[in-house]
């Protein structure tokens, strides 16, 4: 993560804003950060695939959903805590990701990007319907007492479990940063993302990079799916809204900018929390989300002076 002089004034503004929010309504700050963690953690794997394999995976949310159901099933069947069931689920997701890539996505890489878009759209529909046939649309939720873990500061009590998502997001960002900048494979992957033909010329196995990165992304999404399941109810179409939100977040951060996702999600999470905290305004939080996205995209385009 780059910490040059340009970023410092933004950090100062950010801290000031956070302090202001905390003074007005401390829980808004807490919940905003927690929500940001959730968005960021789900968006980072999508950014990874988009930045290196250059495909928009419209089945991203469904991958989350499938992992959540797998975790639920394994946890219930074996009587495990979902955090433990996470391990076999990672294996399941790895296999699933590998299969999806080899059977379908690999064959559209040479085709126009739109083909990949609609292919993943078809995969999303298929996964949703498959789960519907197996589980029906009735919601499922495991009861886990630690999810209600709470902390009290004075009169206010708030939930602390959701900081898990913040931790996951940061861990993912840091781990990926190390992976992509310090390991040989990671550096090769970055090269492929920037220039696949050039990378092939210097001898990098581009196909191998694609397979590994896609499978890795599915595994990471799978982990998030397991965690998601502990906190939220699951049903076959639970993933859909997250796909588009992540896509927007990734676009806002800029392709390939993983740390940007952390900042972006923080802004969005806090904005949502603030709007929700104002009486009668909660219906407008969605607008704020999308206006911010348009704003950031617009400012960036203006700065880069696109045609």
């Amino acid at each position, binding site marked *: 993560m780059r910490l040059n002089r340009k970023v410092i004034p933004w950090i100062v503004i950010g801290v000031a804003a956070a302090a202001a929010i905390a003074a007005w309504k401390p829980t808004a700050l807490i919940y905003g950060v927690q929500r940001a963690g959730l968005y960021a953690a789900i968006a980072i794997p999508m950014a990874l695939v988009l930045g290196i394999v250059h495909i928009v995976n419209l089945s991203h949310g469904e991958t989350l959903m499938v992992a959540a159901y797998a975790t639920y099933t394994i946890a219930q069947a074996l009587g495990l805590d979902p955090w433990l069931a996470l391990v076999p689920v990672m294996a399941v997701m790895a296999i699933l990701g590998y299969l999806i890539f080899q059977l379908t996505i690999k064959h559209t890489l040479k085709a126009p990007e739109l083909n990949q*878009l*609609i*292919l993943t759209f078809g995969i999303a*529909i298929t996964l949703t319907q498959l789960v519907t046939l197996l589980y029906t649309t009735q919601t499922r939720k495991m009861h886990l007492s630690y999810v209600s873990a709470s902390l009290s500061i004075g009169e206010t009590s708030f939930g602390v479990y959701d900081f898990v998502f913040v931790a996951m997001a940061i861990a993912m960002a840091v781990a990926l940063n190390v992976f992509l900048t310090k390991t040989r494979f990671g550096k090769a992957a970055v090269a492929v993302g920037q220039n696949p033909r050039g990378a092939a010329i210097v001898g990098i196995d581009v196909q191998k990079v694609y397979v590994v990165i896609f499978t890795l992304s599915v595994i990471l999404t799978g982990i998030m799916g397991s965690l998601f399941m502990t906190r939220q109810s699951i049903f076959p179409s639970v993933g859909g809204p997250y796909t588009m939100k992540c896509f927007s977040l990734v676009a806002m951060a800029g392709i390939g900018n993983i740390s940007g996702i952390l900042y972006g999600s923080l802004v969005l999470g806090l904005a949502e929390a603030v709007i929700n905290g104002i009486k009668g305004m909660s219906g407008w939080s969605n607008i704020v989300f*999308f206006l911010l996205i348009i704003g950031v995209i617009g400012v960036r*385009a203006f700065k880069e002076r696109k*045609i």
Partner: protein
Amino acid sequence: MKKITSGIFPISLVLLAASLPLFLGAYPQAVARSVFTYMALALTWDILLRSGQVSFGIVGFYGLGSYAAILLAVRAGMPPAVAIIAASLFAALIAFALGFLVLRLRAMYFSITTLALAEIFKVIIHNWNSFTGGPEGIVLPQVVFNGDSRALYWLSLGMVLVVVAVSVFFEKSRLHYSLTAIRNNEIAARTSGVDIFANLLITFTVTSLLQGLIGGVQVFSYGFAMPDSAFDGNYTLLPLAIALLGGIHSTWGPIIGAILLGVASEYLKLKIPYGHLLVYGLIIILVILFIPNGIYGLVRKGRSKRNG
């Protein structure tokens, strides 16, 4: 000789479509209306695509048109035809204004911005309870033609023929060259004198007008508007799938794609009541994998092979 035959086929197709209600019942007519709606949306999406811009926001102008039409009828007492036309112009106006902000963006940024705009329209209409009726929606006292299946069918057919005509116009006029040039290489296009912004603005405004028109016709055919149905997520991505499976950058492609997917989905529903959507998803995957240029793309390839 070629010109005559290339004219006869489409004309006979239109005549066939127009005469369908004479030998097919109310159920196929209702299915056909759904097919026409998706066909028209897919065509408007494809027209803009020919310039290289991928829109995820066609449902935004469709929904705007729906609501404008129904509000003009319910709150201002306008007759249906006037309301639909006014609603289309309203959608075009909004697109024109937004175009100055949005058409400077490219690729994924443009796509996400169109998505964001559609969401913003939806939220505004959803929250503006007093005017739009809020999440519960608004009902029209009367459906047009009193719900007569044939009349509704011909209305829908008329609507899609207008969209087809516009698509053909975009293919045959000078716009075709400008848009293709922009799609292939903007810098080269600019150098050869194409006013990129003007072309994009015209295309964006016209396609948004059409999307508003489709929405207006829909709302008068079914007699109500609700935010969830006017801005239904299916209208965002299914027209894309239809255009792609049929063959993009063409008028025939979306037509073929809409008929294929529309009829297939209804047929599957009758055969597999619980679970037909699964097969539907598989069809999309298989066609994209094995017919990457779309069905019309196959036809075009075959034709160019024949012509040497």
